[in-house]
Every structure is written in structure tokens, then in C-alpha cells.
């Protein structure tokens, strides 16, 4: 078909965008905007996890923000309890969150559609309660590690102490995770997922262990959420139990759909909508809640005219231009 862009072109575009975000963006952004962009990158990563499960298996996971909270909790816990380098704590947080994500997927084996969405949303609600009850570690004593005033500090990676360097660091980690997802989609997992979403019977007949592949998708999604949470802990240094309400997962999921579920760029757009747009509105002296109205309109737009999301529209527009010339 004419509307396919070559792999080569897409690779170049992704690389240029990556280099821009690593080198140019941190250099030109002011202090406040560094924080905004860092958090946008982090939530783009979390959105990729939710959109992956949706695009590959058609399953809705509304607990992604809660998993980001889990990743953040583990990261802070490890920071104060151990002297592990940032990278190792990051990996451990991601791995532990991946296991939590895997457990969340167990209902997915029996349910789909609305019921699964509701079950994950209830799980997110449960985490919200846990976060409020136990708070996030800030260097206090005991397993929960909460003190009235933080006696310690969340360490950042050796190479990325400043906010600007930390933004570059987050972009690099996010890009690595996106590559991980890409490799999954291209390989055995992607083949299994494609068959499952076409027909589970067909997949089984081809020898695909449908349960394993579903669990796998959720585990990978949890891994991304955990990485995002750990990066967020490094960015903010302190996490607030009120930052991970269940409803935020719905918003992030909706934005991932608006951005485009099947593509990394869709997740980036979701991150921008989720964090940059409200900040821009704020900057203009407008109420940030206005963003919600914008998002609602964008979601309607996506559902009605752009099933592939904004990323899909940009892709097909550029493919169309190319085929026209």
C-alpha cells in the first residue's frame, strides 16, 4: 500500500526527535519548564504501557497511575534503605512493579471489556487508599520509612544531578523502554498478540499460549509504569500520596487513545497533553481545568474521526504527502 512509510524514514524521524529531546530541549527550557517536560516524558512512558495493552490485546487497564505510584514507592524505599546506584534501584522498582502488573492481569484471563476495566479501576482505588494510609517513604524509620520531616534526600543518578541533565536522563530511559516495546512488537510477543487479537482460537491452534502472552503484555506494561514511577521519584524527590488518584488513570488512558495507542508517538502526545498543555494554560493565566474540556473534545474527535489517534493522523498525513509528490 502507498500509505506506508518506510522503516528507514521512521527510524530517522524517531532518532532526530530523540536527539532533540536529549540535547536541545533541556538546554532551551527554563527552570519551570524543565520540570514540566520531565514529568511529561515520565507520563509518556506510563501511557505507553497502558496503550500497549490496549493496542495489542484490546484490554483496558485503568490502574496505570497506581502502578506509577507503586514504582515510585519502591524507588523511594530502596533509596533510603540501600546504597544501590540509581540505575539498579530503577531496575528493581521496574521489576517489582512489573510483578504487581502481572498480578493485576490475572483477572484479565477471565474478563474483558468493561468488566476488566472496572476491576483494574477498583485495584487502582485500593492502591489510592494504601498510598493515603501509608504515605511515601521519605527517609523515616521502619519499613514504611515515613517521618514528619524528611531527614534524607532522594538521590539522583551520578550523571544527572541537575534538572536539565535529569530531563535528558529521563528521555534516554524512556527511549530505551520504547525500544524495548518495539522489540516486543516486532518479535515473538508481537506475533502472538496479533494472532490473539484477531482470534484467540486461531492463536491457540498455532500453539500460542494465550494466557502467557496476555500476562506478558501486562507485565511489560507494569515494567514501564514502574520505571516511570521511579523516574518520577527522582524528579520530585518527594512523592505525595494524593498524586495517584484512581481517576487519573482514566484520564491518562483516554489521552493515550487520543494520542494514538499503537505508536510511541501517541504516548508522547499523551504525555504532552497530560502535563504540558495544563502548564501552558496556566502560563496564559487560564484555569488548568480548561485542559479537561480540551481533552474531552479531543477524545470525541479521536473516537469519531481518528481511531489511530493524533499520531495516526500525522503518520498518514505525512505518508500521503510523500505518495502525492
Amino acid at each position: 500500500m502507498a500509505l506506508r512509510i518506510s522503516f528507514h524514514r521512521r527510524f530517522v524521524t524517531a532518532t532526530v526527535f530523540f536527539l532533540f529531546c536529549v540535547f536541545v530541549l533541556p538546554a532551551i527550557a527554563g527552570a519551570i519548564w524543565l520540570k514540566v517536560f520531565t514529568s511529561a516524558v515520565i507520563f509518556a512512558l506510563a501511557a505507553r504501557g497502558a496503550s500497549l495493552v490496549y493496542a495489542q490485546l484490546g484490554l483496558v487497564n485503568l490502574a496505570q497511575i497506581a502502578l506509577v505510584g507503586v514504582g515510585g514507592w519502591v524507588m523511594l524505599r530502596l533509596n533510603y534503605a540501600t546504597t544501590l546506584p540509581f540505575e539498579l534501584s530503577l531496575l528493581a522498582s521496574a521489576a517489582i512493579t512489573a510483578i504487581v502488573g502481572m498480578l493485576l492481569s490475572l483477572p484479565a484471563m477471565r474478563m474483558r471489556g468493561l468488566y476488566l476495566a472496572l476491576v483494574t479501576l477498583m485495584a487502582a482505588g485500593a492502591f489510592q487508599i494504601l498510598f493515603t494510609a501509608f504515605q511515601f517513604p521519605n527517609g523515616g524509620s521502619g519499613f514504611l520509612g515515613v517521618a514528619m520531616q524528611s531527614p534524607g534526600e532522594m538521590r539522583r543518578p551520578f550523571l544527572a544531578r541537575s534538572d536539565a541533565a535529569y530531563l535528558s536522563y529521563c528521555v534516554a530511559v524512556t527511549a530505551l523502554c520504547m525500544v524495548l516495546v518495539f522489540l516486543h512488537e516486532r518479535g515473538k510477543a508481537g506475533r502472538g498478540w496479533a494472532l490473539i487479537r484477531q482470534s484467540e482460537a486461531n492463536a491457540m491452534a498455532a500453539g500460542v499460549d494465550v494466557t502467557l502472552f496476555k500476562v506478558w503484555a501486562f507485565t511489560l506494561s507494569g515494567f514501564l509504569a514502574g520505571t516511570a514511577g521511579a523516574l518520577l521519584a527522582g524528579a520530585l524527590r518527594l512523592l505525595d500520596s494524593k498524586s495517584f488518584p484512581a481517576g487519573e488513570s482514566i484520564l491518562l488512558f483516554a489521552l493515550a487513545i487520543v494520542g494514538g495507542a499503537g505508536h510511541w508517538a501517541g504516548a508522547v502526545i499523551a504525555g504532552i497533553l497530560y502535563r504540558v498543555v495544563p502548564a501552558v494554560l496556566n502560563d496564559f493565566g487560564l484555569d488548568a481545568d480548561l485542559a479537561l474540556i480540551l481533552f474531552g473534545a479531543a477524545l470525541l474527535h479521536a473516537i469519531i474521526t481518528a481511531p489511530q489517534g493524533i499520531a495516526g493522523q500525522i503518520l498518514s498525513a505525512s505518508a500521503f504527502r510523500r505518495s502525492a509528490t
Partner: protein
Amino acid sequence: MIRISDITVRFGGVVALDSITAEISDDVIGIIGPNGAGKTTLINVLSGFVRPEAGSVDVDGLNLLTLTPFRRARWGLSRSFQKLQTAAELSVENLVRVGLDHCSSPNAEKDAAIGRALEFVGLSRLRNTKGGDLNSQQQRMTEIARCLVNSPRIVLLDEPGGGLGETEAEALRTIITDIRSSFGAQVLLIDHDVDLIRATCSKTIVLDFGKLIAFGPTETVLRDKMVQAAYLGQGPGQ
């Protein structure tokens, strides 16, 4: 040898299979019968998609019914489906490769097996075409290649000839006949095309309303009065 004993399947009030017993040892066996006779249900029982109410299936001493569908596939039981469902985004090569993804053999070996299966069904030049760009005959052939790629023991084909033209049906005939010699698998073939059954199957099972009404050498079975009556006088031979 596939030994099917007393298999009974009921869907609510419908008896889809009524105490079916058959021993299958030929290279290619046909399964025919009018619409709703229970042909697909029999294949679903063998491949694990329908759990029979009673009966057993034994293949060379293995109780097949204890395995889940994907384990049966990995054990060497391949099947195609009456309704085509091809994942549109995967290339032909990847659609076939799925059948090998559970194996630990080296990549070069897998590539070779894929090449051989595609060559066998005549799809070599479409290796990189996406599933969504295939016509229905090409989709059928991709499915057969997937069935063959992991050196199966048994291949169950549910109406692979559905909607094929004259030359395509001829190619399918050759393919089915050669499966045993090229891949070593036994074939069970469901089809409404009696010419295809006659050309490929040494023995044929005839089902009607869930009952096995005939099982024997294809020619004998097709001349059977009861079989001709089951086809409502359409006379499968004419």
C-alpha cells in the same frame, strides 16, 4: 493411528456428535456430510476447542483429550479453520513463523522450515506481503503453511477448498496429496467438494445429524444409498 471412541457432544438440545467411533490410520481421510452434520465439531473435539460429554481420543497411546488446545498444537496437531481469520498486520512469513515460536530450534533452521512450507503451498514470492493484502486463496495457503511448518503429526483441514477457483482447487489437490510424503503428517480433510475428497482421500467418514452413517473406502462410501440420501438427493457423485 487415531482412535476415536464413543465421542458424544451436545449443545443444549442439539446432539452435534452422537457416539462417534472411528479408527484412522490412512494418510488422508475425508470427512463429509451436509451442513450442520457435526464435521467441524469433530475437528473441534480433536483440537481441543470443544470438550466432549463422553468418549475418548487416543493417538498412538496418548490420551489427546487431556491436553489444552495450544499444547495439542505444540504436540503436533495442526488445524485450519473454516472461517478465515488472518491477522492483517503480520507478514506471510510472520503468520507462518508463529507456528514455530514455541520451538527452541536455531533461527536458521526456522527460516529454512518457513521457506520450505511457503514453497510447498506456492507462496514463496509473497513472503513479505501483509496478511491484510492477501486474497482468500492466499490466506488459506498461508494457514496451511502454518499448519505444516512445525513438522506436525496430524493436520486437520476444515474446508480449505471453500471459495477456490478451478486451477486453485487443482493446486490444493496436489498439496493435500503430498502432505504425507513431504511432511509426514496424517491429514483429516473436511470439504463439500466431492471431487477433492475423491481425488485425495483413501477413506471417508460421512456424518449426518451427528451420526456416523458411513466410514470406508471413499468410492464405496460415495456410492452408498444412505450417503446419497443424506445429501438430499443432490447425489454427491453427480
